[in-house]
């Protein structure tokens, strides 16, 4: 399960890097999302940065909890 998710992440990252490495188009598009991030002197970029870190830590916690649950289950079976 973890193996699968992990290899998926690696493949995804590899794909992203290889596909977008030479994508040179400038991000000058308007759009509501871009407008939002550029508003108020781009401060919302940093809110987004903090949100990425927070989400990452939460995902890490969830995966750790699942691993520990699996370990507890194994211990219960051993007994």
């Amino acid at each position, binding site marked *: 399960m973890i193996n699968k998710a992990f290899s998926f992440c690696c493949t995804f990252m590899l794909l992203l890097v290889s596909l977008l490495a030479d994508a040179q188009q400038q991000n000058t598009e308007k759009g509501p999302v871009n407008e939002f991030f550029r508003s108020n002197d781009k401060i919302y970029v940093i809110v987004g940065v903090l949100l*990425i870190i927070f989400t990452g830590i939460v995902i890490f916690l969830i995966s750790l909890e699942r691993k520990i649950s699996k370990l507890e289950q194994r211990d219960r079976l051993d007994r």
Partner: protein
Amino acid sequence: MAKHWWKALAVLILTYTIIAGFTHKIPIIGTNGQSSRGLYFHVPMWICMYTMFTISVVNSLRYLAGYDLRKDALASAAGGVGVFYGVLGFATGTLWATYTWGSTFTSDPKQMLTAVALLIYMAYLVLRMSISDIDKRARISAVFNIFAFALLIPLTYIIPRMVDSLHPGSASTPGFASKDTDNNMKAVLYPAFLGWTLLSVWIFTLVVRYKKLELKNIFK
């Protein structure tokens, strides 16, 4: 309680970092605007990553010196947490780049080489998963880990400083180094380094406890 004080310290410093990070006065330079505040959140991710990978390679060396599987557990835990922080650093960097460099992915050497270095470390974790024999896994991955660390430093630190790059700290852009960082920003940046690093060590200790529990039948 006595051994938990540094976790409280980490939370306190991070609280300060987040509050001061958004309210402290910073110089507005060029296209960055207020997004220079990303310095307090994006750069510490890399500091955490370097800390973890250093712990990892040191424990791989210690494993090879005595073939103690506990050291291998430390090395693999640090490697995993290091990749986690690397991915966070990369993700925060790409968002920042989208609104300052003009594109999420550019052919910027620092961005590309960092992605390469992260992939090498992901290969370390995949290599660990692919070998079921515990001793063989520990030995092969310890050697691979040393190779990965030997590549990490030139890929993410030396080469981007020798060539032109959009990222601060390259040949053409002086960057947020000790001499040219605004003093106001340093008052937040250095505590930020300490706070985020302490948090990463906290996460690391949790993973180590898990790994040791997982292998407790062997360690007994």
